[in-house]
């Protein structure tokens, strides 16, 4: 229930963050950044994590805000799920994001948890990373000596493992406007654990349909393997094909090829694989229906 003792510092700027991280490093202390804390604090309360220093980054102006232009949307890392859900533009453009936000955790956790936290934590069972992955999101990372951008797909490495170094901070997530022609449709389908509400399996499908043909398809899966992943085989089957139900079934059946699923008392491997297939079919059907509706409204 009670975290182990730690020292708390509130950073007012990115410079503050780097200075504090450096100070901790020099004093050989484990420091962690905390924004919403909805992933970190539960671990600390169970003493599964016991950093000696917590650096609060929730106040840093550079991490806030959602900026949109014709080419891309940049979401500040300290944006809460709640704020994200209130951004009408994003919800309209990417209904999969609205789908995910409606089933992610609960209203209280969404009021504190942040997009940066969702990405930096490396949780194998997390809803939003599946949507961001399907949207080809990029992670903006800043260190004292510079910034870099990494594709989310390259950033997520494994169970609680990411490409973030100890002296780096995620500052934003960028979603480029989907380049494929035609009308865009997206959907997120989830099979939640009845206690934790985490995704035992979750699938996000983003498709564009032009002239009755799937011009592009992006499918990301979460919950069944050590990290959320893009289902390349599924995407290839769908590409440039008309969305017949037999095609959807075939594509869905390949969503987990080569994946060794997680297996525990919550759900076995074979069941997770099966869920992934079912959810892929459902996500694709809804995404295509939404794309079709968008076509009609053009």
């Amino acid at each position, binding site marked *: 229930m009670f975290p182990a*003792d730690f020292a708390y*510092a509130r950073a007012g700027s990115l410079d503050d963050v780097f200075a504090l991280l450096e100070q901790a490093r020099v004093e050989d202390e484990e420091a962690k950044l*905390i924004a919403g*804390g909805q992933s970190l604090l539960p671990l600390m309360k169970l003493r599964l994590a016991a950093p000696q220093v*917590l650096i609060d980054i929730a106040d840093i102006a550079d991490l806030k805000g959602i900026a949109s232009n014709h080419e891309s949307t940049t979401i500040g890392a300290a944006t809460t799920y709640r704020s994200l859900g209130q951004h009408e533009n994003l919800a309209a453009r990417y209904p999969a994001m609205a789908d995910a936000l*409606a089933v992610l955790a609960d209203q*209280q956790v969404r009021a504190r948890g942040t997009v940066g936290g969702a990405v930096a934590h490396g949780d194998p069972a997390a809803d939003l990373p599946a949507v961001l992955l399907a949207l080809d999101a990029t992670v903006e990372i800043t260190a004292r000596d510079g910034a870099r951008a990494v594709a989310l797909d390259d950033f997520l490495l494994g169970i609680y493992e990411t490409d973030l170094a100890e002296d780096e901070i995620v500052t934003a997530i960028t979603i480029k406007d989907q380049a494929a022609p035609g009308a865009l449709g997206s959907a997120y389908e989830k099979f939640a654990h009845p206690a934790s509400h985490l995704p035992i399996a979750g699938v996000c499908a983003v498709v564009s349909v032009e002239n009755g043909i799937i011009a592009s398809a992006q499918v990301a899966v979460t919950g069944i393997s050590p990290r959320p992943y893009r289902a390349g085989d599924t995407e290839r089957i769908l590409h440039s094909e008309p969305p017949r139900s037999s095609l959807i079934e075939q594509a869905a059946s390949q969503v987990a090829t080569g994946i060794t699923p997680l297996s525990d008392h919550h759900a076995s491997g074979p069941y997770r694989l099966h869920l992934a297939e079912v959810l892929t079919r459902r996500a694709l059907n809804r995404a295509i229906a939404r794309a079709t509706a968008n076509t009609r409204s053009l």
Partner: protein
Amino acid sequence: MPGASEVTVRLTVNGTAAAATVPARTLLVHFLRDELRLTGTHVGCDTTQCGACTVALDGVAVKSCTVLAAQASGHEITTIEGLAEGSPGEGRLHPIQQAFRDEHGLQCGYCTPGMVMAIRQILADHPDPSEDDIRHALNGNICRCTGYQNIVAAARKAAVAMRAAGQEG
């Protein structure tokens, strides 16, 4: 060591300024209960599931067991004790509290403060919620006594009452 292992937390709780110096690891729920003796906010779990600790932070419902008092410093907190005061209408009870009473929405009362604060948020976001809306939005709150049916009825009754009074929370 960067930072401090004790922090002076200054916040406004139910409209009143409060301050105390506490270990950095102090959770907001314990700060409210132990430092300020506002024991209406309860602890029912340790994995952020049950919602009995729900309070409003800057007007938005959060789980106070998963917020550090240090994080809340500089912000405004509303607890169950602050709900009845200042609410318009007759009696001392907020419409949500009154609806709970009318609909027998509580039995042991332990989840109730968190439920009321959660429903306050639900109604702020959906002033005219369907039963489904309410049930889904309550997935951050556990009740073991009521089977939820009367809680949902209370939420719906409160929604009607608050819309009629033009109230937003």
